[in-house]
């Protein structure tokens, strides 16, 4: 029943993006997310689209798996689009009023705004899921540990945080299995999880949660004992089994990504500079493409 749920969504393949260093991918992903919010025009979105299409092609992940992650935010998307379409008030002098009914007004700017918001959210999710699809959770924790290292100076227990993260990840499959077993055992004793009101259903989970918590503590105890008996003493003198090294792929990948991202920032700057400027080449059919 729970076996179908996978944590993380790593897609196993051999590709340029898969082979890139997790730290670089993580940093670029963060930068990408920031850049998304600087995209103001459809021209900018066109650039981002080209970038994402190239990225997905290079990662050899089926488009369908990438789009699966969008499914998760479908309600957020609908909500945002509907709100923006109906409640964006346009400027009567500049913009066109398309529909007006009761308290609802639909302006052309509202449509554009909703479309941009939609694209922004979708690209945000798609961009980050390319990271999780091409990087194993273990590599990701290593990357986080490595990137947080400077914080050690101000006494942040970076190694311990990373350890907690990777232990959590490694325990998920066995806890899933355990949950499955407990659910079956309680079903065999007549437990019913599918009928009844909300309160009754919530109560039905007690016979699952308590044994699960108990076994979680038991496992944690056992693990602590096992680590103690192997003289584990934290970050001191520990080396990594997999040393992360930068290769030409990382530089090339970062270079290409940065070209796109810099373009975004340049577009943003140009827009602010020339938003009302009277420059001929900015106008196509009387519309300023930086603004559109």
């Amino acid at each position, binding site marked *: 029943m729970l076996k179908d749920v996978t944590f993380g969504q790593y897609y196993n393949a051999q590709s340029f993006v898969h082979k890139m260093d997790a730290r670089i991918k993580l940093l670029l992903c963060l930068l990408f997310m920031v850049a998304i919010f600087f995209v103001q025009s459809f021209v900018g979105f066109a650039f981002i689209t080209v970038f994402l299409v190239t990225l997905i092609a290079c990662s050899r992940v089926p488009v369908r798996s990438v789009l699966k992650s969008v499914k998760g935010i479908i309600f957020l998307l609908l909500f945002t689009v509907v709100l923006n379409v109906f409640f964006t008030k346009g400027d009567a002098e500049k913009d066109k009023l398309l529909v007006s009914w009761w308290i609802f007004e639909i302006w052309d700017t509202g449509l554009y705004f909703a479309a941009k918001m939609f694209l922004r959210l979708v690209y945000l999710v798609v961009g980050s899921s390319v990271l999780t699809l091409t990087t194993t959770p273990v590599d990701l924790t290593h990357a986080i540990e490595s990137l947080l290292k400077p914080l050690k100076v101000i006494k942040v227990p970076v190694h311990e945080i990373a350890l907690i993260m990777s232990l959590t990840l490694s325990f998920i499959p066995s806890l899933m299995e*355990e949950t499955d077993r*407990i659910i079956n055992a309680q079903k*065999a004793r*007549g437990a019913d999880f599918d009928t009844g009101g909300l309160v009754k259903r919530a109560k039905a989970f007690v016979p699952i949660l308590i044994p699960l918590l108990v076994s979680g503590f038991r496992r944690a105890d056992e693990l602590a004992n096992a680590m103690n008996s192997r003289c584990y003493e934290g970050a001191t003198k520990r080396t990594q089994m997999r040393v992360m090294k930068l290769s030409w792929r990382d530089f090339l990948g970062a270079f290409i990504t940065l070209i796109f991202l810099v373009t975004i920032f340049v577009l943003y700057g140009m827009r602010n500079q020339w938003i009302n400027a009277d420059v001929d080449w900015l106008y196509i059919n009387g519309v300023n493409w930086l603004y559109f």
Partner: protein
Amino acid sequence: MSKPIRQVSDNITLDENAAISARNLNFIYNAKSPFFKQALKDVTLTVNRGEFVAIVGHTGSGKSTFVQHLNALIRVQSGELYVLNRNLGGKKVDLKDLRGDVGMVFQYPEYQLFADTVIDDVCFGLKNFGVKDKEERESMAKTAIELVGLEFDKVKNKSPFDLSGGEKRRVALAGVLAMNPKILVLDEPTAGLDPRGKKEILSLVSSLNKNQGITVVMVSHDMNEVYENANRIIVFKNGEIVYDKSPRDLFRMEEEIVSMNLEIPHMAKFANVLERNGYVIPSDCKTVEQVLGAVLKLKGGNVNA
């Protein structure tokens, strides 16, 4: 004795004596995916009421998948399965009714305990199966707790988490037995217990089978306990039944058993050696005492030794 017989489909004729009948049961995990695995392949067998059947086989041989079919934790994908005259392949199965009649004890059943007190935990199943009256529930729980060899007044108000490992397991067993199942399915009931705990659980299961006529289906890895307790052993391999024999007959085939990486029980080995040397002992002599008695009888010595 005449038994009412009923033709339920082209393939299965149910007589009232059958507790479980399976016909061409197939089960596939993760169909149409890279993790595709056929867990059951054309499993056909009949277990009669009152039998003590042991199921053995390696991890991944399909035995767990099969036993989970018995109370519809896994639904029939293809083939036919009748348990206590209920068609489990049918569209509508009264799950509660079925699960009350087929008690399932999972591996490490003590991990399913959750209630504040032992008596609450044992009553959990009864409550679910609709025993409304509290007094009645508690008297049923009392019977079950005493059946598994615990002192009711001593343990009833204890937290199940304060008990020892062996006691916890017995409480969990009591939780299943309280529902008065007609079939008891056990998945490695003795795993992780000390020798004494093992013996106690096994003699409990044996006596339930002998004295109360409960049909027992037990999955186990321990050939010695299987040999001594079951009256029929089914060997699963790669989702198929490869042997379905009486313990004595099964372990007479030493080479085949060893080639399947299964162990030959001590007493079976002993009896085999005796047989090869021309001393035939009755096939129902399986424990040390029984075999010893048979040997002494052959020698004409004192049987009570």
